[in-house]
């Protein structure tokens, strides 16, 4: 089946087997391998992207369901060659170690702070239940997200 999906601002027209998961479409068809697969069961959030601006676990959607939608992946988050503030905050606060959960973590957190500027530490920790990290113990991730949330509230 033919689909047209706008990925990081570029229209991608492809013929896909309907059973193709969106995450496989991104990784295999478009070679956008920044979006990861971590759990198979929609728990870990490594595959998080934005669909029409909304946070989505791309392992739990068929590519055909995304036909006509606009997807942003980690590769498309930076603007004009500048890191997104959430990318910068993760770097500055040591919010990552092995980096595998990081793209999903950043995509989820970026949308969260956009919608919840000034979020509290408790709200951030609660929100992150959909994103699992095995390395950092979350401490520095929470710190990074809080930094951006505080900045967003101040702006």
């Amino acid at each position, binding site marked *: 089946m033919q689909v047209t999906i706008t990925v990081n601002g570029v229209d991608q027209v492809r013929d896909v*087997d309907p*059973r*193709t998961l969106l995450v496989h479409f991104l*990784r295999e068809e478009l*070679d*956008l*391998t*920044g*979006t*990861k*697969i*971590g*759990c*198979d*069961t929609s*728990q*870990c959030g*490594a595959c998080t992207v934005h669909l029409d601006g909304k946070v989505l676990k791309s392992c739990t959607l068929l590519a055909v369901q995304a036909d006509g939608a606009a997807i942003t*992946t*980690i*590769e498309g*988050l*930076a603007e004009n060659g500048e*890191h997104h503030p959430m*990318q910068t905050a*993760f*770097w*500055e606060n*040591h919010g*990552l*170690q*092995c*980096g*595998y*959960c*990081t*793209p999903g973590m*950043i995509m989820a957190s970026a949308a969260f702070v956009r919608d919840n500027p000034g979020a509290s*530490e*408790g709200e*951030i*920790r*609660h929100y*992150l*239940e959909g*994103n*699992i*990290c*095995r*390395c*950092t*113990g*979350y*401490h*520095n*991730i*929470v710190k990074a997200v809080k930094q951006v949330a505080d900045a967003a509230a101040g702006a």
Partner: protein
Amino acid sequence: MTTRIFGSGIKRREDPRLITGEARYTDDIKLPGVLHMAVVRSPYAHANIVSIDSSVAEAMDGVVAVYTSEDIGDGLAGLPTAWLIPDSDLKTPEHPALAKGKVRYVGDGVAIVLADDRYRAQDAADAVLVEYEELPAVIDPEEAAGEGAPLIHDDVEGNIAFTWAPFDEDASNAVFDAADVVVSERILQQRLLPTAMETRAAMAQYNPATQELTLWCTSQNPHIHRFIISAVTGLNENKVRVIAPEVGGGFGSKIPCYPDEALVSWASIKLGVPVKWTETRSENYLITIHGRDHVQHVEMAASNDGKILGVRSTVYAGMGGYLSTAAPGIPTILHGLLYVGPYTIDSVYCKSIGVMTNGAPTDAYRGAGRPEATFLLERMVDNVAREIGMDPVEVRRKNLIPAFENGYDVAAGLTYDSGDYPAAFEKALGMAGYGDFRRQQKSAKAEGRYLGIGVTAYTEMCGLGPSQVAGAVGFQGGLWESATLRVTPTGKVQALIGASPHGQGSETTLAQIIADELGFPVDDIEVIHGDTTETPMGWGTYGSRTTPVTGAALAQASRKLKDKARVLAAHLMEANEEDIEYADGSFSVKGSPDQAQSIQEVALMAHLAWNMPEGMDPGFEESQFYDPPNFVYPFGTHIAIVEVDAETGEIDLQRYIAVDDCGPQINPEIVAGQIHGGVVQGVAQALCEGVVYDENGQLLTGSMMDYCMPKADMFPNFELGETVTPSPHHPVGVKGVGETGTIASTPTVYNAVLDALAPLGVKQIDMPLTSAKVWGAIQDARS
């Protein structure tokens, strides 16, 4: 003088590629013409294979081949066990890459399918018809070692793979017989799933013309993988190139060489095309090694006034269906030798029995043997305190080894390098406000609220380790590391290392060591690792050893280069060598500071070699092999404060204080990150993680729906402190810190919960402390 780079919490040099999604992990690498491998896996924990019919699968769209053990024949040797512990009557049953006639755990590979697409490979794998004759299964290691348990390997009598008991049992018994107090507990160190967020993956590409095999795989130790893949395929080691690209965490689970890596290699050799396999999380939970799995019978002897006299145990350690690469060393060498901990305990005894079961193979998981030792010690210290009616902090204080700077021999046979356990202990107690807490606890109790505190003092053995010791304890490899420090003509640095970091931030930490030694800007230093063809030999990243061992190799290589630079600089400036002063990457002549040569200028001149001192070779590159003279022994004290909701059994972790001493910290932010992550992993063992198999050996915790991975909302912000006690034998004094958090935190939180529950009469609960178990224990204690 600028801020010293050593000790500075700079941003990680790894991160730009990771925060943008540009890093390439194994599954991200694409090769044209690649075939995808799916593995047909046993649905039974123990069964004979009656027949395999792959005819339907072979005819399916896109399927190139289906192979079984019979097809492989002698094309692949069995996977070796590489830690052959001595004096233990060790048996090493054959571990074929695909099961031969019998499966021994759910997930054991039975056949492989190779197809042009991963979806179609799975379709065909589902269509391979395997007939099994199911056999009784056994999961509990103590039960598996008992009478009448089903025999898993014909050549492992009674399922006992080894019995390790190196200490003097009579002497231990004498101590216990004479002691005022003996406390005991049966401790269950439940199985855990390492759960690196990146599952395992492997892609092999064999070039028939050159007979070279390249294997990309998720490895913590590509040089060990090369060695084993060469051994099992029969290819010469110099024809095998193993590349660990970006690796998404390991925690020990990417040390072993697994059947899957051997199978993609064999299939690529057989078919002459690249072959790729990527593990699903479901597979990961079934087949990638599990951690822990001890049933421990532990006793501690003490005097009435709280002096700890001895500790002894009998440990049944579950090995699973096969002996994984390093498995025998974990519940033995890395466990029993740690029974003294930070205390003045004069008598230890450990009998560790390695038992084959129908679970997934176990092996090193973060801490590997040492968490299991620390837990039992700390648990028993609290039991002693309760038994004699002394505050557990007082018991610990009374038994801590006093500060020492250079060597302390303990009864378990180790020589600790340096430590000041009382300093870390008192610092942590101060941060926690121990006395105040005890008062709060009392008033909360009056309101019907149950608060508890747990305090753990620990030391551990890491930075593995002297190769002579490795040999003596049967480790089938060395434990040194090597590094090549290469400075280009333009003064940029490549540090090639044999170790293989996978999230630890070593590209940053190691660059900081070099920058500190030689004065190069840290941004001019690239640390290169993971490719056996590009990098010098090394034994890998595990056992908190990369900073201590590779770091030492790099410090020494840096010093060699600096020595060369000093001589060359003196020569170039026509000064006496003894008049050369070095500061911040610049060599100058004493008394005439205008006359100076930067390290970059010296490097260029060494490359040009236009004007070398007599006898000096050109070039600016040094290699260093470093074999540590001893292990390093980080230590510290962790404290947890919890509240238990007696109505539901829920546990609220309110505060977590960690004071760790890993010597001088090269990058405090990276050290803190290691502790944060380690603590969460250890706390999760206490509170929520645990593998559950049913009586037939079916995995009930087969996904993150059932296996409880710790989440952000379970934790407070951590309160970290440090003391700094350099290792006397290390060139820059550092100790490892990758595992301390995991080692210390499990007993800390466990003891805090049991402290909270003490007024209710609860004395023991098997981990993990789920709300249902806590609630059940409260009901049992009340009835």
